[in-house]
């Protein structure tokens, strides 16, 4: 809960929902209190800057601009330790998968090659629009109505690494985690068959506070 009355008034001011009474109090504060004038200008300009960043796509990149970050670049932001832990787990799994493929290939000569080099790894954030557990595919979109869709498949074919799926930072499976109207971050590579999800982090819709 916001305990500072001026903060409350400024929040409503910026949301365009300020009441006449709040407006009168704001005006009085601006006329009499230099600290209030400073806070007012800082709040207004911060709001303008935030809008400017959002409109440039810097707050939440739209799918059409993806891939926007390689794995090493998106590690530092987000939910901090949990994301890093997930990334480290993905790295270990990738190393394990490469080792298994190498051993398999050496012994039998039948394993398929990894379908894309690790350097093509990218991430995409968005909403899950639809999911087909049987086919192992799902569609991710940005929040805009006209945002293009990105169709991913999970690793099932021979030689493909099995996709690691997290639901709220806990290991999960396709059917449980990948459902419409959930937020997801997908780490993927491009292959001849499309976009292969290597890791999917799904967030449940938050509980109303």
């Amino acid at each position, binding site marked *: 809960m916001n305990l500072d009355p001026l903060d409350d008034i400024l929040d409503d001011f910026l949301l365009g929902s300020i009441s006449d009474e709040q407006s009168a109090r704001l005006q009085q504060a*601006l006329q009499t209190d230099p600290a209030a*004038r400073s806070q007012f200008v*800082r709040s207004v300009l*911060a709001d303008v800057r935030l809008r400017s960043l*959002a*409109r440039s796509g810097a707050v*939440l990149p739209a799918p059409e601009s993806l891939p926007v970050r390689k794995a090493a670049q998106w590690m530092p932001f987000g939910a901090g330790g949990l994301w890093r832990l997930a990334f480290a787990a993905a790295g270990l799994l990738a190393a394990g998968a490469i080792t298994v493929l190498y051993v398999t290939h050496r012994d039998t000569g039948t394993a398929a090659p990894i379908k894309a080099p690790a350097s093509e790894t990218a991430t995409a954030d968005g909403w899950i629009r639809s999911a087909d557990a049987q086919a192992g595919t799902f569609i991710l979109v940005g*929040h805009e109505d006209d945002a293009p869709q990105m169709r991913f498949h999970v690793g099932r074919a021979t030689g493909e690494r099995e996709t690691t799926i997290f639901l709220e930072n806990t290991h999960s499976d396709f059917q449980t985690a990948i459902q419409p109207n959930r937020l997801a971050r997908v780490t993927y590579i491009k292959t001849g068959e499309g976009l292969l999800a290597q890791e999917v982090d799904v967030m449940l819709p*938050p509980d*109303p506070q």
Partner: protein
Amino acid sequence: MEPSDLVRQFVQHRDVLYGYIFALTRDHHAAEEILQELGMSILTEANRGTTPDSFMAWARGVARHRVADHYRRLGARRRHEARFEQFANAVDVAFAEQAPTPQDNQQQLQFLRECVERLTLRVRTMIDLRYRGEKSMDEIAAAMQWTAGSVKVAMSRARRTLGECVDRKLRSEEGSR
């Protein structure tokens, strides 16, 4: 001040002028339109050879006239004229005292960009819906499966978190000088 300086100064200060206009209108669409009108007015004055002593004080004055024109077009100004004048005076004093330089404004924008990247995906989604998607609180609430009240609280917290983050970076920057 040379006449051509007017246009250069407008370009340099346009973000702060936009903030000033937005403070008077609380309407981003109106503020964008009025900023364009302000740009045209400044271009006209530059061609006339106008050379104000203080660009920002002069530009705020021109902007304020354009805002008054905006309210007149809406037919709302007459009813709220006295209140608008008083509020505009207070806002004018605030911006005269507190407006950052273009360099400081750019630095704060960069710091804000860095701070936004530290927010959770949920919060960034909410901000994106609000500022890029131009969704209302109710629309954001529906999209996020929150209540409108929760969105308002979360938005307030996000603004505060970002403000504190930018302040920390500014203090750190000042300390390293």
